[in-house]
């Protein structure tokens, strides 16, 4: 019972986690520029398959310096639930916001006693400080995660194998329950207080073959013919920017396409609705509430029911340069679907029997899951040592906007930016960097709300950049 209680507690609190999909940005150069995606930032390469074909620009590689781990080592949270210093919310914050960046400021830990007042026809729950973690709206979190891929390229072609994980969960309290928990509104009689959860998780391995190439090129007026192009060894002593379509005022179009076969490893889906309904009297001689809970699950997994799934998808992208202006459009996981043979179960809680009854609705039922596409549209303009850039990233859960600028003064870069996060809040970033030949050190400071309270915090990110 004790362990089960913990499991239920942690599992359900996952539904209260913030939009953890908004992962930390470990590339300090990019973070300093508001997290904006550009073709010359290696961290953006996965956003647009066409970026592969564009000659490398400034900062093609990045090595993150996880300062947050040092901070964690010096201030480890208490994991022993029996310890007086144990704070579940601190642990959840750690999970939702892995300590890879250095935390400069964060919300106060959730603390304080809570009070429950019970009378025959009254129930008031005052969560005090814990109210901060009760979501004001439905909580959506998840994303499509393209994990580290293994592959190689030859000229314009490339092949790779890459794990993909897609997670989406939406947890919601109905307004009455939210009001009772968030605003300490009294529970009243003859009312249902409900919560719902709708979640999907699937994992697959993508076997991908692609091409990324320059489809069109016209040199800037007065700079020679199209034959004087990038990649020629005779250009070694020239200014590198002479071959860089971002900075040589040439007109160029790069396109990329990468179809992929998706080997589905596991799929799971749950749609649940539960509630408590109060009676004529909240606390009388009979049970004060009636419970109801219904959940429908669908699953398939390698080595288990349904086995593996199979499907196809593609990444597409294009980036256009004109007069040092960049416009890119990348769409990942276009029409990506996986076909499964799933088992569907229905779980109904019986209040009278005080147990769940599970029935199998279907076995090996054909089902096609979808990996939602992510679209990145980016623009950038280079003016000498200065770059200004913006992008819009649209995915299943939200549309993010990133704005950023960078300028170099000798060996030192100054950066600033802002971005609209998954909660619709604007965050501010800034940073600097210094370059020593082929390597540079970058630092960035940014605000964020990646914590269970969804309150403003600030972080310091550091990374090495390979030029």
């Amino acid at each position, binding site marked *: 019972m004790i362990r089960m209680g913990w499991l239920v507690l942690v599992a359900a609190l996952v539904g209260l986690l913030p939009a953890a999909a908004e992962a930390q940005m470990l590339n300090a150069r990019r973070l300093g520029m508001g997290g904006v995606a550009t073709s010359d930032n290696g961290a953006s390469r996965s956003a647009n398959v066409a970026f592969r074909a564009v000659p490398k620009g400034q900062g093609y590689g990045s090595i993150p310096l996880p300062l947050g781990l040092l901070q964690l080592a010096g201030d480890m949270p208490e994991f022993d639930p029996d310890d007086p210093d144990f704070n579940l919310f601190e642990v959840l914050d750690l999970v939702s916001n892995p300590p890879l960046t250095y935390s400069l400021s964060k919300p106060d830990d959730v603390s304080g006693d809570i009070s429950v007042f019970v009378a*025959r026809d009254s129930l008031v729950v005052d969560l005090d400080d814990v109210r901060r973690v009760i979501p004001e709206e439905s909580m959506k979190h998840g994303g499509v995660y393209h994990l580290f891929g293994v592959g190689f390229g030859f000229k314009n072609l490339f092949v790779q194998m890459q794990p993909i994980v897609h997670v989406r969960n939406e947890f919601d309290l109905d307004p009455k329950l939210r009001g009772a928990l968030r605003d300490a509104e009294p529970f009243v009689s003859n009312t249902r207080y409900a919560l719902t959860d709708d979640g999907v998780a699937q994992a697959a391995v993508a076997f991908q073959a692609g091409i990324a190439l320059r489809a069109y090129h016209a040199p800037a007026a007065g700079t020679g013919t199209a034959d004087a192009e990038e990649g020629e060894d005779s250009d070694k002593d020239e200014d590198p920017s002479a071959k860089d379509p971002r900075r040589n005022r040439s007109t160029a179009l790069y396109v990329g396409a990468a179809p992929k076969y998706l080997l589905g490893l596991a799929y799971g889906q749950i749609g649940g609705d539960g509630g408590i309904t109060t009676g004529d009297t909240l606390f009388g001689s009979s049970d004060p509430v009636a419970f109801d809970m219904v959940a429908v699950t669908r699953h398939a997994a390698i080595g288990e029911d349904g086995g593996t799934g199979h499907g196809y998808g593609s990444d597409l992208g294009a980036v256009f340069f004109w007069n040092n202006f960049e416009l890119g459009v990348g769409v990942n996981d276009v029409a990506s679907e996986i076909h499964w043979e799933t088992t569907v179960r229905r779980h109904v809680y019986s209040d009278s029997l005080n147990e769940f009854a599970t029935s199998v609705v279907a076995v090996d039922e054909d089902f096609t899951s979808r990996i939602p596409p992510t679209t990145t549209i980016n623009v950038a303009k280079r003016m000498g040592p200065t770059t200004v850039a913006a992008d819009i990233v649209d995915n299943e859960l939200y549309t993010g906007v990133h704005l950023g600028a960078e300028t170099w003064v000798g060996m030192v870069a100054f950066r600033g930016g802002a971005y609209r996060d998954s909660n619709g809040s604007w965050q501010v970033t800034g940073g600097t960097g210094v370059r020593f030949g082929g390597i540079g050190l970058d630092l960035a400071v940014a605000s964020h709300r990646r914590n269970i309270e969804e309150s403003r915090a600030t972080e310091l990110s550091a990374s090495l950049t390979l030029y």
Partner: protein
Amino acid sequence: MRRLAVVLLMLPVLAAGCGDRSLILTVDVLSFLDPADVSRSYGPIPGGLSGVSVDVASEEVSLLPGIEDVTEVSSAKLEIGASFDNATGTASASFRIYITSADSADVFSSAPIADVPVSLTPGAVTNVSTEVTSDALAEALVQDKVKIGIRVTFDTTASGITPVQGIETITLLRATVITKKNL
């Protein structure tokens, strides 16, 4: 399973009980009494008797289910207030509060949570108020169902031949239980 469902639905409450924080459960016991039992007449009780009991209230009520499973009681107290408007006679009385598990066959067979002495004199209103701490109270109030009983026992030996009668009114019965998590 039912209790697990409660755990799920009362999740934030339970989470708040982690670590050094407390869940403070306040129960307005008075509200559970039948209004007719809150203010009752007693007597006439003949003088010269001892151990005359008047059962003011005896009720079974449902409280928050599941609390017992996930919390560990730190302390509990019961605030008591009552008024005795004694019309005639002289008596010493014991105002006793019983709160016990619903499993108990007879709430009055358990030890009282509180036993408040009251001195009654003719034509006088006697107000009593006190506060008691009790482990038994704590154990009872974190259960799903409890029985509540209130009994007044009169000793009228000092009243002579004058019967004792009046009106007893309960003005306050509020229990506060402080618990920690126990997951």
